[in-house]
């Protein structure tokens, strides 16, 4: 129950190609997050799964049944909208009952489901209020409640937390995670916030310009991004990218000339790269550590952001390459200071001239 | 009171369309049934040539304006200096006594005196204007249609029933929408009412209740409408006392017989041309007579004029015998001027022999006017009586009232008007 398969999905609006070549297999009970920059097609993809739009090409199957020609009302899915889309003229109870009345469920059954869901979401006291009388967080829970009572095959959530303030967002995130644990129903979640993706997802689908860049668990995406885009998108602050040229093979990898002629060793499969090949190196800000002078890369500090638990340092190398480092604790640095940074070979990512991860890296 | 009156007048001035006349200006409000507009324009132009110090401003308006808007203007103490009016008696208090302003009151009395009572309050001796024409109600028949249907035209003493039956035969044969039509007007049916013995006027001059004569003709008219012989739209497609003429229907050969009056002659001649032959028939007979109703429009001077002297000069010119004769000949009207009638030899400006024949017929028909009809133009309750007749009969035709209810209502409507004026 709740297994969704997308095969060869494409969607265009007139001349604009919004989605192309989407193949995805969502397992039952999974919480899959679609993430990507604005305009990447994640919301469109969600709406295609919901049935609110029809794909231009490809098929969608739910639990093995082809639902591409089936209208939204009959797919057995429930959606939580970004704007909640609560019926403003009905009470919370009526909002939640509406879909069930459409299915002609008996009254006792409807009341039971509403009672259960409102208890779960702690909105039992709000049942007779109108949406206009609720706060943002309360409305969000009602929207979720409306979806829960339907006992759907899967939940579809379209950026449900983006209208909430930062504090509420954090607590609601935890609640959603707990809810998923409890219900065990498949959830397809769309967000542009990669922190939400990282914390909630069983698997993340990274989308860019209508294509899937990579599908994997959050940690796998973090540790082994398939290309430059995913590497830069996942993880905050963004990964540092440094251009370099392959010099020659070394044990287990290649040597790359980067910065002002420094040689940086990276892991690579034999034969994956040839000398003279252009290569992009990637190092996460958290993987840079401060070393003594002459032990590492000299970086001139431009901006220091002291966050208390860690310090974010913006700097430039001698060649003008920007470097961002996140150092633990509180470093007494000021703009203009020169510090030396070093990083581990096994934490250095390498991407070839097409931006793809180098084999064996 | 004076102040209030002048303030009100000033306000009314702002609201009404007539602007103040300055010295030397004479405003003449005129309506036309046919070609009179051209004729009066010409005559007025000639007057201004002979009298360059007087500027006559001619306002050609629709009959409705004279009927409905002029009385309001007069009540506000405004209005033109001279107007051509048919509703002469009821609002006679607004007419100016021209006697001090005209050259020769005796000439006026001799030639127009017969009708002076039609246009002045009871008991007054004022000379307020003169009749531009005498009109007489009467019928017109579409000779061509009758011929095509093979129905002979009824004779001179034919009754209403005979005329309607003949027209009905023509209707059936020629597939006409209706056999005949009478204008939607209480004035128009008063001649036939009197022909059936009606008398509206009690001996003391107050209105009499509707009598057997009125009822007889009203019943017939309603019956003919129900049978589809009388063209229903004419009376039924308006409410109250709104005037509707059936001239267009006759001109378009939709009906075989049309009961209207002599003022239509010029209109018919212009619009029908050679399309078909038509004749005037006088008024069909009822049980007591074959009477039409005399009437006509008069040119009257308005009391509130600022230039009574100039008004007098214009009136004198237009009342001149040669001018009246020319007017009559060009407009194809029946003259009111005694001298013109007596001299005869009117050279009506029409190539159509039908016109001359029609006019002769009408002149002859004046002999058939019954006393009860002759008294009506000078009677001050005539207009309310006409209004009540037409309002209530059309309701019966539309199926809203029964005839008896209508008659009761008519008496009440007229009594209300009398009570109001007290």
């Amino acid at each position, binding site marked *: 129950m709740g297994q969704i398969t997308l095969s060869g999905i494409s969607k265009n609006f007139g001349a604009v190609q919004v989605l192309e070549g989407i193949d995805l297999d969502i397992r039952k009970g999974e919480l899959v997050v679609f993430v990507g920059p604005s305009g990447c097609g994640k919301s469109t993809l969600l709406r295609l799964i*919901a*049935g*609110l739009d029809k794909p231009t090409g490809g098929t969608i199957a739910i639990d093995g049944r082809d639902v591409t020609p089936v209208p*939204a*009302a*009959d797919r057995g*899915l*429930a*959606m939580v*909208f*970004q*704007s909640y*889309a609560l*019926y*403003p*003229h009905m009470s919370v109870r009526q909002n939640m009952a*509406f*879909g069930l009345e*459409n*299915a002609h469920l008996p009254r006792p059954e409807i009341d039971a489901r509403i009672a259960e869901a409102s208890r779960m979401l702690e909105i039992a006291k709000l049942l007779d209020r109108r949406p*206009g009388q609720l706060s943002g967080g309360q409305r969000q829970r009602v929207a979720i409640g*409306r979806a829960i009572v*339907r006992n759907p095959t899967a939940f579809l959530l379209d950026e449900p937390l983006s209208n909430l303030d930062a504090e509420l967002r954090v607590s609601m995130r935890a609640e959603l995670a707990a809810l998923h644990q409890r219900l065990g129903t498949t959830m397809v979640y769309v967000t542009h916030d990669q922190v939400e993706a990282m914390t909630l997802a069983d698997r993340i689908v990274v989308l860019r310009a209508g294509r899937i860049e990579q599908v994997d668990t959050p940690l796998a995406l973090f540790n082994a991004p398939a290309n430059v885009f995913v590497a830069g998108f996942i993880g905050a602050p963004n990964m540092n990218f440094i251009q370099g040229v392959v010099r020659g093979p070394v044990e287990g990898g290649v040597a790359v000339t980067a910065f002002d002629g420094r040689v940086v060793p990276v892991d690579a499969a034999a034969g994956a790269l040839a000398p003279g090949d252009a290569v992009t190196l990637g190092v996460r800000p958290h993987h840079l550590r401060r070393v003594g002078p002459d032990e590492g890369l000299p970086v001139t500090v431009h901006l220091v952001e002291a966050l208390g638990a860690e310090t974010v340092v913006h700097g430039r190398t001698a060649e003008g390459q920007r470097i961002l480092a996140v150092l633990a604790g509180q470093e007494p640095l000021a703009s203009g200071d020169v510090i030396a940074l070093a990083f581990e070979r096994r934490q250095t990512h390498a991407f070839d001239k097409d931006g793809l991860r180098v084999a064996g890296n | 009171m004076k102040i*209030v*009156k002048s303030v*009100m007048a000033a306000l009314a001035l702002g609201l009404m369309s007539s602007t103040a006349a300055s010295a030397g200006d004479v405003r003449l409000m005129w309506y036309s049934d046919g070609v009179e507009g051209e004729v009066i324009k010409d005559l007025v132009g000639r007057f201004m040539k002979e009298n360059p110090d007087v500027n006559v401003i001619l306002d050609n308006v629709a009959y409705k304006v004279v009927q*409905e808007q002029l*009385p*309001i203007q007069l*009540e*506000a*103490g405004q209005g033109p200096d001279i107007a051509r009016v048919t509703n002469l008696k009821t609002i006679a208090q607004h007419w100016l006594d021209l006697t001090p302003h005209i050259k020769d009151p005796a000439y006026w009395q001799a030639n127009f005196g017969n009708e002076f009572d039609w246009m002045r309050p009871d008991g007054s001796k004022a000379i307020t204007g003169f009749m531009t024409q005498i009109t007489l109600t009467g019928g017109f028949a579409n000779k061509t249609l009758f011929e095509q249907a093979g129905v002979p035209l009824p004779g001179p003493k034919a009754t209403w029933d005979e005329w309607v039956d003949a027209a009905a035969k023509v209707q059936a044969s020629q597939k006409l929408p209706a056999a005949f039509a009478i204008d939607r007007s*209480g004035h128009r049916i008063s001649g036939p009412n009197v022909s059936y013995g009606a008398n509206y006027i009690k001996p003391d001059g107050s209105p009499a209740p509707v009598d057997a004569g009125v009822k007889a003709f009203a019943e017939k008219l309603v019956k003919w409408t129900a049978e589809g012989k009388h063209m*229903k*739209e004419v009376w*039924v*497609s*308006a*409410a*109250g*006392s*709104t005037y*509707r003429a059936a001239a267009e229907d006759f001109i378009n050969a939709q009906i075989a017989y049309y009961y209207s009056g002599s003022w239509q002659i010029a209109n018919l001649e212009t619009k029908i041309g050679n399309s078909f032959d038509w004749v005037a028939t006088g008024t069909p007979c009822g049980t007591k007579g074959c009477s039409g109703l005399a009437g006509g429009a008069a040119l009257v001077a308005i009391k509130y004029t600022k230039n009574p002297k100039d008004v007098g000069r214009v009136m004198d010119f237009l009342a001149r015998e040669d001018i009246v004769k020319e007017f009559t000949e060009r407009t194809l009207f029946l003259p009111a001027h005694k001298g013109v009638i007596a001299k005869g030899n009117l050279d009506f400006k029409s190539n159509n022999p039908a016109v001359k024949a029609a006019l002769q017929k009408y002149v002859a028909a004046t002999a058939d006017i019954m006393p009860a009809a002759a008294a009506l133009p000078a009677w001050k309750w005539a*207009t*309310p009586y006409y*209004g009540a007749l037409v*309002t209530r009969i*059309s*309701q019966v*035709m*539309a*199926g*809203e*009232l029964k005839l008896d*209810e209508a008659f009761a*209502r008519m008496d009440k409507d007229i009594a*209300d*008007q009398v009570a*109001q*004026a007290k």
Partner: protein
Amino acid sequence: MAGVLGRAAGVLAAPVAWAAALVDRPMRAWQNATGTNGMAAVFLAPNMLIFGVFVLFPLVINIAYSMTGGTALFLPDRTFVGAAQYERLLSCADYTDPKTCEEDQFWIAVRNTGVFVVFQVALMTVVAVVTALILNREIRGRSFWRAVFFFPVLLSPVVVGLIWRWILQRDGLLNAALFQLGFTPHVWLTDRFWAFAAAIGVSIWAHVGFYALIVLAGLQAIPKDLYEAAEMDGTKPGRVFWRITLPLLMPNLLVVIVLALIRAVQIFDEVFVLTGGGPGTSTMFLTQYIYEVGFASLLKNPGLASAASILMGGVLVVLTLVQLAVARRNEAKGKRQ
């Protein structure tokens, strides 16, 4: 173009500034003397004066007229009769049967107006909603169709009446078409039922575009995702309309209904040209009754007409108050959301 405008602005700048400077000192002095409220009063005065002279003053005079009798049109020449005109208007043996009333034409007009208002407003609201629903969809040439529906609203009522009279008269377009199609023509405007139906139909045709526009605005204010949520909830289209669209449209519909009521009570122009109040008096409405009795009829009675107009005005005042209450309620609801 920009260059010309720029140059014009440059040329005008100096004289405008000079004129402004000229007026500045006296204006400031005046404002200091009378305060902002005083100045506002002076600027409002001309409009209030016009309103007073052309609306308020005639209204008061009309009330005075309604308590007088006699044939004179000039108020001071009339006789005071107190409430006699009202008494006459309102005296009926049986209020449901105009024939038993003293002033039967008045009650016929009242009854006609009542029936007209009920049917015309109800029908027009339905037509307006249906029209707005259709115009809200993504159909081809949508802007064109919106203009087409709104066009009759721009026509003068006399033109509207004439157009339809030419269509409906005995030798009009409708009968010609029916004849061509093999049906027997019917003289629509002399038939009491059809003339009344025509009055309703023509006035709906002439005004529905305006109300459809108001309803359309209301429709477009309903967020699209409510419909999507309803779709996800598995709602059938009929239920979507009854349970979602209609309740959310209610404020707009109330406005439409009250406005339509106020206008329907005053119906005159189109119908007068179309049927003249006929056949008989079957399409004679209150305004025409007042016009006839006050001005046009050969059986004039200005005092009676004034009394009738005051009574009619009373009804309109009630409706206007209802409209104000509805507007205030909508505003409050809007603020809360």
